[in-house]
């Protein structure tokens, strides 16, 4: 690990301002992903700003009838929250499908959204990776890319976003509250938060330098049958080959987001509109522009079949 300096921030605005002063700084919350990457020298921040003391760890109702989840609410606490389990079942299920208890005890809501890809080439510092070293190339294209993106990828990067929680947040239309270094706040929809890789896969979100997530807000509950189905290589603990987050209303309408297929949770309005017509129609829209590789082409039919199975379960 490279040496770094460290400070504890007293308030969100102070944290953002501190980050603006030190361009090589990183925020550290749970650290479950960051510390691992620092040990491997994939992340080498010169300065760490510890945001754990910012009191952003409560879940409160909003005036609109939704929930405001502090950025530092631990994944364990979020999954266990009674309101989340009752009104946002897809979120609770997605969290439990994710990491181990010891990790969920540390990992935070904002940190989960911002975790880095688990693309093996991103982790292997001997290999080219545009995300780790811009301009070096992408080893996954033409490499072992069974786990990689089938849609929304670019010539520069075919990594996937690893989060289960973010897929649920996407289907729930969550929004992200932030504070910028100058103290201004803004709200970003989850649809906008993550970027597609394009030519700059190293830039993963629309957050500006020093901008800090303070909360994630869920709109008022939409009811329906809420499902999260994760297909993976083993039962206990693995990143998704594909995952399906779906909310299905009694009339057959609904929405669906996929994990494990793109650089961000994958959801399209045109696909949601096809929900009453079933899995094949929905998948057709979701994957209209899909460009799978030889190794991961199986994800297309697998996602469609998983969706079909989810819809069947939702109908009871």
């Amino acid at each position, binding site marked *: *690990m*490279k*040496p*770094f300096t*460290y400070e504890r921030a007293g308030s969100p605005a102070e944290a953002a301002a501190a980050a603006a002063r030190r361009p090589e700084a990183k925020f*550290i919350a749970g*650290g*479950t992903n960051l*510390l*691992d990457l*620092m*040990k491997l*020298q994939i992340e080498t921040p010169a300065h760490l700003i510890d945001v*754990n003391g910012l009191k952003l760890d409560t879940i409160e109702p909003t005036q609109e009838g939704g929930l405001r989840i502090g950025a530092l609410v631990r994944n364990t606490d979020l999954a266990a929250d009674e309101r989340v389990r009752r009104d946002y079942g897809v979120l609770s299920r997605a969290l*439990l499908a994710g*990491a*181990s*208890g*010891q*990790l969920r*005890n*540390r990992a935070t809501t904002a940190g989960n959204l911002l975790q880095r890809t*688990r693309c*093996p*080439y991103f*982790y*292997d510092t*001997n*290999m080219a990776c545009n995300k780790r070293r811009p301009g070096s190339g992408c080893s996954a294209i033409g*490499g*072992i890319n*069974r786990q990689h993106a089938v849609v929304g990828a670019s010539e520069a990067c075919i990594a996937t976003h690893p989060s289960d929680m973010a897929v649920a947040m996407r289907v729930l239309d969550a929004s992200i509250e932030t504070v910028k270094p100058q103290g201004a706040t803004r709200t970003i929809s989850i649809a906008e938060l993550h970027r597609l890789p394009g030519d700059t896969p190293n830039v993963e979100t629309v957050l500006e330098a020093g901008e800090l997530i303070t909360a994630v807000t869920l709109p008022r509950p939409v009811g329906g049958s809420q499902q999260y189905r994760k*297909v*993976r*290589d*083993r*039962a*206990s*603990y*693995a*990143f998704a*080959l594909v995952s399906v987050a779906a909310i299905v209303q009694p009339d057959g309408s609904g929405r669906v987001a996929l994990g494990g297929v793109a650089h961000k949770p994958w959801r399209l309005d045109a696909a949601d509109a096809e929900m009453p017509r079933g899995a094949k129609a929905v998948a057709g829209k979701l994957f209209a522009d899909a460009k799978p590789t030889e190794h991961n082409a*199986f994800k297309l*039919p*697998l996602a469609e*079949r*998983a969706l*079909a*199975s989810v819809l*069947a379960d939702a109908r009871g």
Partner: protein
Amino acid sequence: MSRYEINGHLFAAEPKPGQCLRTFLRDLEVFGVKKGCDAGDCGACTVWIDGKPFHSCLVPAFRAEGRKVTTIEGLASSGEMHPVQKAFHDAQAFQCGYCAAGMVMTVASMGANQKADLPHALKGNLCRCTGYRSITDALNGKCNIESDVAGKACGASLPNPFTDDILTGKARYTMDVAMPGMLHLKVLRSPHAHARIVGIDRTAALAVPGVVAVYTWEDVPRRLYSTALHEDHLVDPDDTYMLDNVARFAGQRVAAVVAESEGAAEAGCRAIHVEYEVLPAVFDPVEAMEPGAPLLHDKDVLTKEGNVYCDLKGEIGNIARGFEEAHAIHELTYSTSRVQHVHLETHGSIAWRGEDNRWHVRTSSQGPFAAQKKLCYLMGLKARDLHVFTERVGGGFGGKQEMISEDLVLFAAMKLGRPVKWEWTREDEFLGGTTRHQMTTHVKLGARKDGTLTAMDVRVVSNTGAYGNHGSETLAAAMGSPIAAYRCDNKRGAGYAVYTNMVPGGGFRGYGASQTTFAIECAIDELARLLAIDPMEMRRRNVVRPGDNIESIWQEPSDASFGSYGILECLEIVERELAKGNGVAKPGGDHWAEGTGVALAMLECGPPTEHRSGAEMRLLADGTYHLAVGSSEMGNGITTAHKQMAAAVLGVRATDIAIINADTDRTPYDTGTFASTGTVVAGKAVHIAAEAMRDDILAFASRHTGMDPVQCRLENDAVVCGDKRIPLDALHAAGAKTDHHFAVSRKAYLSPRTIAFNVQGVRLAVHRVTGEIRILHSVHAADIGRPINPMQCRGQLDGAVAMGYGWALTENMVHEAGHMVNPQLRNYRIPAYADTPHTDIFFADTVDSIGPLGAKSQGECGINPVAPAVANALADATGIRFAHLPFTPDRIFAELAEKP
């Protein structure tokens, strides 16, 4: 100074910049906190912060400032074990014990909800030894241990003698020691699969603060050797240098950096500039056999031909005639994947010069004596000047039948005169450790209408990787017992161990036989299907019987013979249990298909090559005994078994026998604990040493009392001569006066070898949409003779079967052009709790006439029938033969998707 509260004690200490809590705690000599991955996957480092469990490897140390940190050492209060420690004690919920500290900390933090949902709650803790069954037992409050009664030790489920130390964090594993002046070694590994090193510039590395030395191929003795540990070093090719100027696989050591801290050593490695001339590489063994393929080894290393390191061919009967006589023929190519042992304790060694002016190496090894021999050869030392030993070893499974960490630390310690330690990372294991040999097996079997086998033709191509360690021996095993398990007049085999630019293969539980067993057991099922014969009946009809020649493809007589015979009983047990069922139905919905499969495996107990062990026993002044055995204990339970065997002969409790093991200074020679020899060779030495001890005591007692020897007998802690009862301590005192020391030693060799069997039955459901496989019923029957410790034997089988499921379903080292792309435990997936089905384990009722006290080998072979039983169940469920491991969802799904 910052203040830390650890287990109720306040420490004033400052973590190093960037230090995680795990290493910080270990720097404070809180050694109960273990490392299996250092990346938040395995849970061995789990500690509590303010009562909540965390992976301490992912917690920055400064986070714990002002909080209450609790480790395994702090869980017991006022000398009383925590109820979870007590439960783990009673259930013996560990084998090597390395995962136990973290496992206990996680379980002890669980509420009722979590205990009700263990598949989720135990996601963050891996165990490689137990298959999680004994851990479940602990959670259910089950007691698996029996009491230790004098004279009844053999056959009793006695606890591991080191239980309390393991469960309270006091047990010391290889790396759990602090030494003044310790230096740390790290290696730079080759990024290229095949490259010549043109130049190495170490200037920048030497300039890194804390770096003491950098060693390259120019510094180390230029002596060829093999890393494999065997009695006879000639069975492996001398094709390896400590450090070489040619890298033959991505991950090979290129340079070693020694520094004042691990961090400095790692920084030093990164600062070395190496100029490589990249050479053409070959990864596929079939391509490597072609003329014109890049050659791995040149003039210094003898190979059969090109990259073929060795071949084994043979034929009995007439194979062509055999196929002419067949009414049905099955022919298919099967292949197995490259997998690794994943002993939770990684490799590691510490070397230093002692006050006695000799060199000492503390290491995590299955063969300290064989390692000593190799180290002496490499470093030009005399055996008397080198002491090699183990402390607790955290798992082996064959991975530590290899000398791959001892050489560099000894070399550096001898150069620098200071203690040098090298602790491998998990990535070091995956890139630079050994693996199960990837094998491709072409099988052609023929049988008559009634199912009688008429011809078996097997061709094996084994990818031995860049070096030939274990290459020929595993190939011999691949061409041996899986073929010999069936009686058939016409057999032919051809096997090739081929060098490629892949990470080297090595010894791994099952040892070559696993791969051929997979192929042949699948093929037997296919042949049965062609003939419409029940697969179980097909096996019964063809399996070898007492009186048969135990022959594979060679005419020469084998030294294997039946000391007992339990295969038919094993088949019957599995058939009965599968028929009876366990009440677990397949999940609801139309998408699940269900199927049943079985497979058998045969094991010749011990290697065909030389293997020897010694045991020394002494009667101590207090009337108890001391036993010294060279054999390694790495979680296989062999020290418990050896104590029980000796106790049984001497009529005492197992606790009356103190034991030391695996130490070149303090125990007699032992070839190594591998090839399932702990019971049948080392155990035999213990058995005859204990008998000699008994005879020595009785002879002295007879002289001492003047009674006829036939009137003298041992009775627990005394010798009874006629009507006189002399306590053993008094007898010892009498002996001391006449210079009689009550010390004996005996040696054991291995021949003939007896034969053990294992049968696995599986009923599973497979989801046609997602390819997900769920094991519904898992049954295992083992013919292992008389179990010395039934609980431990069952535990060994639980672990072996779980490892078999890992091989079949989830584990796979994925390589692209020689580079491993998943060298982390989150991407290389050993079974976690939720992935491991419960297996019902049964023993055939056999008592062996060759093995000591009626026992046979039991740790090795349990893994072998698991993958083919899964494959056979899959074929039964889907009608599709999956011939390539592993059966991951996308492969299953892809095949199923093509079928309507």
